[in-house]
């Protein structure tokens, strides 16, 4: 909304992308030992790690559902994930996002298999650069599959929006702060279901249609990256599970 030019005369965005390009995305499944399932995602400058525990007995009895499992997401920004240090403790924004991600993920599981249980999903944002709820949801869905939880389909998630009056895909932080609109979408390609949808800013109904279509197509692309990550994990020799980045390893011995 300030007078920064976000798309240059050649149609390129501040980081060189075209209007319909995603930032680079890298997904890895099974990155933690203790969690029942886990995933790590790098999405542009976003870095997020997700751990899943469950289905396990729900401690707070009054929240148990007699006929199904519930999903409890804890989405959390690390104090060092943003420019100005974030104070510890869950703020209102984090609570809202935790709620809508819980609801989205609950849709994707076959929940009546595990009555009275909870599936606990911890989304730790280590570095944030706009789009963390979509990146977190994408990684959380992989982590749930990694935990062996029966699902109707993986959720892929991506935002589109409007910048300099133009509909674009996958806003980065500069675009998110100064752009015209943001439209995060969570989508299950296998069932064509929309499980997350938010929007703020200013879109005509026509712009909405276009933006929604962009996001949905991107989700199909992201879905493939999710499958690749899971395939890679499950085709590995289990003993090498945590062998990423062996270069950094050092040994102390007596």
């Amino acid at each position, binding site marked *: 909304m300030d007078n920064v030019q976000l798309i240059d005369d050649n149609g390129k965005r501040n980081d060189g992308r075209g209007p319909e390009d995603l930032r680079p995305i890298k997904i890895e499944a099974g990155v933690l030992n203790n969690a029942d399932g886990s995933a790590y995602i790098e999405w542009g400058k976003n870095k997020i790690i997700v751990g899943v525990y469950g289905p396990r007995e729900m401690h707070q009895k009054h929240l148990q559902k007699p006929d199904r499992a519930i999903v409890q997401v804890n989405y959390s920004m690390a104090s060092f994930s943003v420019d*100005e240090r974030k104070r510890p403790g869950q703020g209102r924004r984090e609570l809202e996002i935790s709620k809508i991600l819980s609801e989205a993920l609950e849709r994707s599981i076959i929940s009546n298999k595990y009555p009275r249980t909870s599936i606990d999903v911890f989304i730790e944002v280590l570095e944030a650069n706009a789009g963390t709820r979509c990146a977190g949801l994408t990684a959380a869905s992989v982590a749930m599959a990694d935990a062996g939880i029966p699902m109707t389909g993986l959720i892929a998630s991506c935002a589109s929006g409007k910048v300099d009056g133009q509909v674009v895909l996958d806003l980065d932080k500069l675009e998110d702060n100064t752009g015209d609109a943001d439209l995060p979408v969570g989508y299950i390609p296998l069932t064509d279901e929309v499980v997350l*949808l938010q929007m703020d800013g200013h879109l005509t109904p026509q712009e909405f249609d276009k933006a929604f279509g962009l996001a949905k197509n991107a989700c199909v692309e992201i879905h493939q990256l999710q499958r690749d990550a899971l395939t890679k994990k499950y085709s590995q020799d289990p003993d090498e599970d945590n062998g990423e980045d062996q270069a950094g390893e050092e040994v102390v011995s007596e």
Partner: protein
Amino acid sequence: MKDIVPDLRVEQIKRLASSGKRLDGRGLEQFRDIEIQKNVLGSAEGSARIKLGKTDIIVGIKVGMGQPYSNKPDHGMLATSVELKPIAHHSFDQNTTKPMSIEISRVVDRGIRESGMIDLKSLCLESGKKCWMVNLDIMVLDFDGNLIDASTIGSLIALSGTNVPASNFGMGKDFSLPIGDMPVSTTFVKIGEHILIDPTGVEEAVADARLTITTDASGNLRAMQKGLSGALYYEDVTKAIEHSIKTGKDIREIIQRRD
């Protein structure tokens, strides 16, 4: 909304919806009656009491002075809160309603903020140092569904009658809060195949998904929020957008007629 709704009731709601009807006699696309009282409190700088069917809320606005947020040094401040107090429903208690009240207040706030309805820049007094702080507090007295729309309507009414008490702070004459184009939200639920506008408490309790759409006077989108753990199809969304633009116009007229 934490009631256990028996399966029979769910079936009844779906059966009625199949023939375009609802438990309270409305059609699927019919909003409930809106009852409006304006400036009901002497202690608040702006206030309103809104009844949307049996949902009953009160909105109070206090205007004070504050220091602008460091990332918005030239803007006044708006803070929106929704209190789901236990008076409003037997199932409400401070702990369990927190996520729900945060979601509602953030969706209401987003609609008001993104529409530019309040010219926050005009509420800055000294860049980075001093500004007007508008506290918009919504208290739910009786709950029967659709708090987002009731809260949005109540907020618009209360804000548009708000007096900035500048003289109390030695900052010149009092003035009316500068109000521009109003955002109007409409909320839908999906139950089975059916899309119902303005859900009651029972309808929310059995709904698969919820969708709120906030539009401006030009019929453009300003905010959206999907809720609940069911899914929507794209067609559900476009259908809801269409209804929202139409119903939003009617509600906007009612609000403005009262000015």
